[in-house]
């Protein structure tokens, strides 16, 4: 048996044609899937930040009931697999909204896959972001917050001028991790049939039978997204640490 005979299936002739962005190739579909994935990741990360900020403030400064409810939220969401949560929220969320609409006398609506994906992943991200932000706020020297309060700052001004900028350097590593998790968790939406990168890849692979080529290409795209994010994150981290002593020797 010649070497050529062994390797020819691996090369899967015409990988370049298959991956070209023009219609006979499937590259365009993959890129569209990547755009959808990035969109969902951005939306979910943003929503997660909002929920996380509210959650962190609730856990730190809320009343006893709010604190306990937040504890239940973060514990349950972090203990149950994302895939199960996505299915549960995807079905239950759409169902509840439609029931509420019917109860109020409106007609049922079809919930946009993009919006549903963002809402579901954002809810999951919120639980992790709550813990990250809570830890970051606790790392701020508490005297600074007390001093701001002593100056008579309102809670909103205090948050905007003191807590947020001061906690950012402590929060960035955790938030960066969360962003990378968000980009990878978008792949889970393939299971509920949303056309993000992984599902587009599987469809392209299923049609052309070039499974290996397409999954490798998609893996390359995800990896590029991660490496690109790392560059941006390093820049944001440097910016958020401006004026602070270097931590290079501390690590």
């Amino acid at each position: 048996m010649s070497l050529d005979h062994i390797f020819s299936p691996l090369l899967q002739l015409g990988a370049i044609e298959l991956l070209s962005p023009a219609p006979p190739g499937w590259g365009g579909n993959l890129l569209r899937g990547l755009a959808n994935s990035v969109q969902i990741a951005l939306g979910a990360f943003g929503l997660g930040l909002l929920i996380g900020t509210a959650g962190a403030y609730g856990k730190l400064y809320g009343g006893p009931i709010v604190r306990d409810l937040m504890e239940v939220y973060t514990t349950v969401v972090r203990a149950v697999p994302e895939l199960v949560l996505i299915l549960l929220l995807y079905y239950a969320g759409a169902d509840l909204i439609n029931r509420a609409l019917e109860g109020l006398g409106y007609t049922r609506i079809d919930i946009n896959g993009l919006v549903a994906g963002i809402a579901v992943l954002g809810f999951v991200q919120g639980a992790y972001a709550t813990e990250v932000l809570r830890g970051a706020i606790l790392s701020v020297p508490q005297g600074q917050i007390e001093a701001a309060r002593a100056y008579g700052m309102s809670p909103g001004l205090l948050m905007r001028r003191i807590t947020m900028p001061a906690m950012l350097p402590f929060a960035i590593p955790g938030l960066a991790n969360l962003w990378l998790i968000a980009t990878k968790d978008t792949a889970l939406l393939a299971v509920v049939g949303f056309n993000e990168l992984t599902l587009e890849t599987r469809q392209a692979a299923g049609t052309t039978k070039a499974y290996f080529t397409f999954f490798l290409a998609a893996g390359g795209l995800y990896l590029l997204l991660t490496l690109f994010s790392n560059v941006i994150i390093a820049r944001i981290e440097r910016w958020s640490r401006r004026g602070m002593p270097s931590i290079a020797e501390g690590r």
Partner: protein
Amino acid sequence: MSIDLVNTTRTQRALGWLQPHRIGLIAIGIALFGSAVYFMRWDWIPNYYDLALQGIWRTIWIMLVTAVLGFLLAVPLGLAQAVGPWWLAWPANAFCTVIRGTPLLLQLWLLYYGLGSLFPQFPAIRQSWLWPYLRQAWPYAVLALTLSTGGYVGEVMRGAFAGVPHGQLEAARAYGMRRWKIFRRIWFPQAVQRALPTLGGESVLLLKATPLVATITVVDIYAVASRVRQDTYIVYEPLLLLALIYLCITGIIVFIFRRLEARIPTRVG
């Protein structure tokens, strides 16, 4: 006497935890649970009882096997990154970056659909003793989860190996221990002890990754719940029960790791 003291403080702590609002919240929780049991449909459980038990067993089995194999892969990966020469450190680092930079679902599908579609094209593989295994789904599931855990835990072990104080290793060398003995008696135990809390977290993450194997036709507990949904059109009940099962398994993992950590006393400054 001292036992009495401990007991009173423990009761006091329990009483302190059980504040009035918590009693109310617990009552609401029990009411919700009771109404879920009473109003929702659970009549499908007897039909799927055996299948569900098998599914739970398979989930735990896959998790345990991949945790052990992944850890065995992670130790050399961590060592190579922490102290290895560049020609070992560089590939290990690249492996961890690639594994951590791509979704597990994609890795799983790449192995199952990609490799799985390549293998039959080689007659040599089709005639080997491996072929009966390669035609099933679970070897791919175990392989994908092992590589994934290995990548994530390898990164953890890198920090753990690098974090063991140098004096400990120098002292061991001064005692005349050989390299393997230093590793077995000093370096490895201390690194694992340092990494225990993180390893507990990684174990929970691994458990939460196991339902993905259902997408390549391995029948774990998640696949059983999906099947109930498809067979009976009951949507919420199987999923809620599934979430409860995962909560319980997570609780057990957290408990085990807390016991492991408590075996070694640590001093908090």
